[in-house]
């Protein structure tokens, strides 16, 4: 009897503690420092606190690296202030740089800066020309960011004007690359830090953007921000506070959105998967936030390895893949079979005249025969032209959020290649071992590499950024075909939009002929948000409703 009473007591205690845990909200779990959401009714026209959800972790708080939820939020002209930002169509727009002119040879950009508009760092120090010059020097020599890799130097012209000199012509392309991403950094903080990459001091989050970091509740995985003033660079800030809560999965995030715990989602280049679309469509007070995705899933062929350095082989692989299935697996019902130019339709310079990719096993086999890849020993699998065994490794980008979809793509590809006599296997190491995958990319020793072109990179420079074999553009690509390299370099130096578009079209044409890489699906991006409390959302294609305009346009529904 005693035992039964004890069991009942324990069960009761356990139930109560579970109930307590499940009923605990983020605000209940906060420390004293955490701002408690205001109970007063929101003032007319302004949003008292906007609750955002993300799948990035609230674990890295520094403006030096662009990691985690904080780092990615900086892309929205939020805590940090970029020199330029973009509009919904990807056009470069002013921010700290209020006006600029590009030299005729496209190497020099003369910029007027908003140094006289009362912008201050969040620790009270004024934003000065020293900070601006320091930022360029710091990005070139210390931070070694891709923004700085193109820049030779920056120098002061007068009290609020600088001249940015590039290493080679390409101002138009460089502006597209840095707009929204390249932000000014405080000299008084970073000049004294010896190991800035690992520095996590309280002042590492100091920016001069419209919002200041308040604190983070690690238990609730929520960070808090507040507007620095009612106006910023002459515009009224309509969102007073922002909370950014991290979720372990998109499933949990969608549940929170449906329940009204958060108002919208923001995850850089990681929209809600199209296969979850049914869970966010036709839900009361929820807009799925659908737009054409500028980014896309794709494969790259390795030009440093046999047989993927051979045109016939690349052509055969391209013909062997089942694009209908890949489109459905990646993009769900809205998934579209891509064209042979890789670049997705919403991007600048998209060439709609190129043919759609199509599975054609006979053509694949003919290409393999033509390349000399024959089944010499009669085991059902083809050998290399010299008679040695052919083993193809299908590797993948290592990504926690995209692991399953990459695995599925790899499975499909291995089966598709098997059907034309190519013995392929999944490179399991690339899925499981981040260091291995990093080295694989760095060395360029992959044969077929599955990866994702982010929406940002797609609209800034296009997916060819990942294909090209040079160190200026990261270290992913291996393509050294002279005509491709020449076309890429010519486009990089494009002085204007027209030339850029022509260059992009040429690159797509070359890809359609040389099979450097292939898109696997053109899909839709879903960044859902609630429609019952606020209005004024602007959905940037492939980016979502949380963007550089949200802070000035959002209002409570009257």
């Amino acid at each position, binding site marked *: 009897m005693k035992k039964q009473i004890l069991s009942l007591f324990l069960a009761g205690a356990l139930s109560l503690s579970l109930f307590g845990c499940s009923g605990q909200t983020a605000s209940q779990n906060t420390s004293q420092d955490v701002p408690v959401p205001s109970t007063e009714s929101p003032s007319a026209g302004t949003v008292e606190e906007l609750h955002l959800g993300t799948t990035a972790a609230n674990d890295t708080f520094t403006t030096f690296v662009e990691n985690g939820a904080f780092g990615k939020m900086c892309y929205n002209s939020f805590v940090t202030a970029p020199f330029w930002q973009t509009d919904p169509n990807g056009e470069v727009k002013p921010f700290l740089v209020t006006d600029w002119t590009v030299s005729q040879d496209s190497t020099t950009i003369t910029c007027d800066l908003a140094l006289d508009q009362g912008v201050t760092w969040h620790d009270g120090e004024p934003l000065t020309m020293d900070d601006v010059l320091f930022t360029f020097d710091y990005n070139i020599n210390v931070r070694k960011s891709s923004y700085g890799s193109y820049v030779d130097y920056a120098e002061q012209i007068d009290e609020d004007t600088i001249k940015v000199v590039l290493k080679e012509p390409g101002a138009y392309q460089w502006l597209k690359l840095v707009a929204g991403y390249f932000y000014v950094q405080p000299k008084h903080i970073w000049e004294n830090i010896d190991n800035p990459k690992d520095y996590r001091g309280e002042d590492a989050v100091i920016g001069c953007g419209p919002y200041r970091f308040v604190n983070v509740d690690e238990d609730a995985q929520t960070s808090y921000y507040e507007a620095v003033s009612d106006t910023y660079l002459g515009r009224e800030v309509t969102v007073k506070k922002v909370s950014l809560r991290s979720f372990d999965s*998109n*499933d949990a995030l*969608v*549940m929170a959105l449906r329940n009204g715990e958060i108002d919208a989602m923001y995850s850089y280049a990681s929209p809600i*998967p199209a*296969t*979850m679309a*049914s*869970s966010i469509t036709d839900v009361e007070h929820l807009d799925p936030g659908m737009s054409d995705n500028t980014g896309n899933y794709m494969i790259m062929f390795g030009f440093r390895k046999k047989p993927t350095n051979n045109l016939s082989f690349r052509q055969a692989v391209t013909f062997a893949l*089942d694009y209908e*299935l890949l489109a*459905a*697996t990646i993009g*769900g019902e809205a998934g579209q079979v891509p064209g042979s130019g890789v670049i997705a339709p919403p991007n600048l310079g998209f060439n709609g005249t190129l043919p759609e990719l199509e599975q054609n096993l006979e053509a694949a086999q003919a290409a393999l025969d033509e390349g000399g890849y024959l089944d010499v020993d009669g085991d059902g699998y083809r050998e290399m032209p010299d008679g040695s065994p052919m083993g193809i490794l299908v590797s993948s980008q290592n990504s926690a959020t995209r*692991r*399953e*979809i990459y*695995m*599925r793509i*790899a*499975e*499909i590809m*291995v*089966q598709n290649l098997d059907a034309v006599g190519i013995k392929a296997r*999944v490179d*399991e*190491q690339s*899925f*499981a071992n981040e260091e291995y995958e990093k080295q694989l990319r760095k060395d360029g020793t992959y044969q077929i590499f599955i990866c994702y072109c982010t929406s940002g990179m797609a609209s800034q420079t296009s997916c060819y950024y990942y294909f090209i074999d040079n160190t200026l553009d990261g270290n992913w690509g291996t393509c050294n075909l002279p005509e491709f390299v020449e076309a890429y370099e010519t486009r990089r130096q494009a002085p204007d939009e027209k030339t850029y578009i022509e260059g992009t079209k040429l690159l797509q044409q070359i890809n359609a002929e040389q099979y450097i890489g292939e898109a696997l699906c053109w899909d839709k991006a879903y960044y859902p948000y609630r429609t019952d409390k606020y209005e004024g959302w602007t959905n940037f294609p492939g980016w979502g409703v949380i963007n550089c305009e949200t802070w000035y346009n959002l209002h409570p529904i009257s």
Partner: protein
Amino acid sequence: MHKKLNGRVLAGLVILGVVLLVALLAPVLAPHDPYELGIPYLRPSAEHPLGTNDIGQDILSELIYGTRISLLIGTVSALTVTVVGTALGILSGYLGGWVDRVIMQMTNVAMALPSLPLTIILVAFLDASVWNIILAICITAWTSTARIIRSRVQQLKCLPFVQIERTMGASGAYIMLRHILPNLGEIVFIRAVLSVGSAMLTEASLSFLGLGVIGQKSWGGILHYAFFRNGIINGAYWWYVPPILCISISVLGFMLLSYCGDGSAHGRDRKEKGNAGN
């Protein structure tokens, strides 16, 4: 010696018989090749009774073929764990002294380690394959068998028939193999049966976490993709409920079978009590 099967054991045997038959007859029973690609995310229909997964593979066929991997990993792991655990338990219990101390220290250390996290780490470091998963399960799962067997051996070695053998000059190895081991049959069987269920659960957990072999069909693997490819949030219960049921029912089957020694154990208890009364 004829033992009457009790209802629980019979139920366990029926369940495991069906599971075994499904595993053996998978190519006959499965309506499709489980690796065949088709139209993704189909709802259940006459052609695909449990619908299709995210790459168009027939879920029922995956489930049927998955029985093989789950059973293979379960039984091979259990066999290994039982052999190792029994051998160490007998040596430790019979020889005593420093052998016992060494083995029990090893056991204590192994028992102190959290088994699932350790298995996850091992699987993550080893190349993904069925045999490495079995190895990772076995490394942490032998301890309780060794301890239980040791206790029973310590009881047995004090019994008169063992003492007589010793007096007659029989070697330790002879006594362990000829007299101790046969008297452990019931415990070894129960431990082995329970180990199969436990290994199947561990395998399902590993596969669910994505640590299984890519592309291989197992119940945990099906559950993994149902969860991570949005089956749950989209309400595709026909995708995630069947593997859960299969795992649960199979483990239940092994649990029920472990009641096999119940009757005789009770009989022995009664007899021992009777002897104590005398």
